[in-house]
């Protein structure tokens, strides 16, 4: 189906399991948004979540860094482990978890501060920089990784909110990588980007894969095929199919997956 030449040369190596979810259910008040999801996400791998709008991709993603804790009506049951530690354990502090599991949100949300401070904030509160020079280095490195350095290097002290939508999103990506998380969750990071910036971000994702485990929600089949090694297809709150990207796109086992990726439902 997608005979992208990426797929052909993809080498699927078995990695350690970074995140494992078991019988995860999420309720928003009365409505049941995630139903019995089991998934094992590998380390040093890009995992793509695909599925029609409203199927619960963002909701599940937000379970992984306990961002759903901030929504009063949201209730998460089941068990999610990172490095085999239950992140919903009573002893776990979600703040510590979120330092380890970074997130890029669906809508760009830079702080209404300068570009520099946007990036520096995370490292500052986690004490990652010992000096101003250290911090400058972190800021530059992060902005380079967010593929936005060249555009903002002359106005680091201009407000981050003054950037264009796509620049803001890359700023948010840079902000998320600045704290050196182990897992990076990206909710449609490229939905506001032009093709050039998109390919820059995709390169970044590929680069990050060397050290991190990445989960990326996307509506673009091509993007999922290009960047991910594993793909999970969600539909109406259930995880329909999960497997190697090559297999999902060329040879899906479930007919719902097949009709979605060929554009019949969605």
């Amino acid at each position, binding site marked *: 189906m997608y005979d992208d030449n990426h797929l052909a040369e993809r080498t699927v190596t078995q990695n350690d399991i970074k995140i494992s979810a078991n019988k995860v259910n999420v309720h928003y008040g009365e409505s049941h948004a995630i139903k019995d999801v089991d998934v094992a996400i590998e380390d040093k791998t890009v995992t793509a979540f695909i599925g029609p709008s409203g199927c619960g991709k963002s909701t599940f993603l937000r379970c992984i860094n306990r961002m759903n804790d901030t929504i009063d009506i949201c209730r998460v049951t089941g068990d999610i482990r990172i490095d085999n530690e239950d992140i919903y354990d009573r002893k776990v502090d979600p703040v510590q978890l*979120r330092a380890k599991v*970074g997130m890029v949100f669906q809508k760009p949300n830079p702080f209404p501060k300068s570009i520099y401070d946007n990036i520096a*904030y995370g490292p500052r*509160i*986690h004490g990652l920089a010992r000096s101003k020079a250290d911090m400058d280095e972190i800021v530059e490195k992060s902005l380079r990784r967010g593929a936005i350095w060249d555009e903002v290097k002359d106005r680091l002290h201009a407000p981050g909110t003054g950037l264009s939508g796509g620049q803001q999103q890359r700023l948010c990506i840079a902000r998320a990588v600045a704290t050196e998380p182990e897992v990076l969750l990206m909710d449609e990071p490229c939905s506001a980007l032009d093709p050039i910036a998109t390919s820059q971000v995709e390169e970044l994702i590929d680069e990050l894969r060397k050290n991190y485990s990445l989960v990326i929600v996307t509506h673009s089949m091509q993007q999922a095929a290009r960047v991910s090694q594993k793909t999970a297809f969600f539909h109406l709150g259930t995880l329909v199919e999960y497997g190697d990207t090559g297999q999902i796109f060329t040879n899906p086992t479930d007919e719902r997956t097949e009709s979605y990726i060929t554009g019949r439902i969605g």
Partner: protein
Amino acid sequence: MTGKKSSLLELDARTKKRNAAEKRFQYFGIGAVTVGLLFLIVLLTTIVSNGTRAFTQTFVTFELVLDTAEIEAAEASFVKTSKYRDIITAQLAAKVEELGFETELTSADDLKQIFSSGAAGTLREYVLANPESIGTTEVFKFRTSSRVDGYSKGRVTRESLARDKNLAPAALDLVDQMQEAGLVDRSFNWTFITGSDASESRPEQAGIGVSMIGSFFMMLVVLVFALPIGVAASIYLEEFAPKNRLTDIIEVNISNLAAVPSIVFGILGLAVFIQFAHLPQSAPLVGGLVLTLMTLPTIIISTRASLKSVPPSIREAALGVGASKMQTVFHHVLPLAMPGILTGTIIGLAQALGETAPLLLIGMVGFIASNYPEGVASGFLDPNSAMPAQIFEWAKRADPAYYERAWGGIIVLLGFLMTMNMIAILMRRRFERRW
């Protein structure tokens, strides 16, 4: 449907109707604004025309010989000020004769009606403060009585004096002549701004200064208690508290508190702070505490509203990079909510500054606020009044001179309120620029 194609150059019936409705609404809006402005203009002109007269005062200016023997005699007598008054009137009588004014008031005793009863005190204070002046001749500026002052401002006429025993109509003829000769003139009345309240019969000596200090100390109390308590309560309720029945009840009750008539807070303050806690009566401390209770809901409601208006995506962004809830609130949410919080606080303070009713119940009105506090502690604890209470007190008094002062007091009060609003606007600007 007709098959006819409609032209864009011709308005169809629907569009015409819509445009007409829009026009009507605009005219209505302009009308509403005009009515509002009209009220404002009427209000301001009334206040200004009634109140500005309180800011001037008529004085008698003339040279006084400070005779050593006379002053020693006065100091030795029992009622010292009456002797000092005699010095003033006797010398004015001599002056009147010397200048050849035509008047029926020849005795020194008749002339004392022209002066404020405080004139003698003014002279004595000067002499005591400057003993070296005894034996010389100095130019003095004495306050006239409120009747003479009223005459010069057009408030008092010969007809109105016919039934008034405080000033003989004949005195006005003399005042006219003195004015021509430059002995009587009107100038700015500093005493009104810096002075203290005076007894019923001496409106020309009354000023709003002491009650201004009372208001100042009350505002300090309100600021020190209401701002931290209000902001802390709002942050907790808005950002940390679980949303359950209890917090719902608290929320509803805070909104209800904001609608409680202020006099209720007054009686509560009387019961709790004075009768139960035995804090001193009429003290700015108690007034401030009562006004704190009254201002808290205003501050809480506006603070919560401005916290709510901070987009949730900012909180998510901060939490997402691993900030704690507290860091999120203090580093990101609070700075963005600051302009709103400050505006709410200043509006609450302004409300408190203008509040009279609760002060009636804790005894901050109805007496003469005559002494400046001696220090900070006595500023909080000694009986005092507040500007609006002082205005109320003056408005109650029978003498029209006090009525004039009540209007003048309103100008001072409005001046303060406007200044506070200005500060609110400036702070808003400043904080907004820092995004």
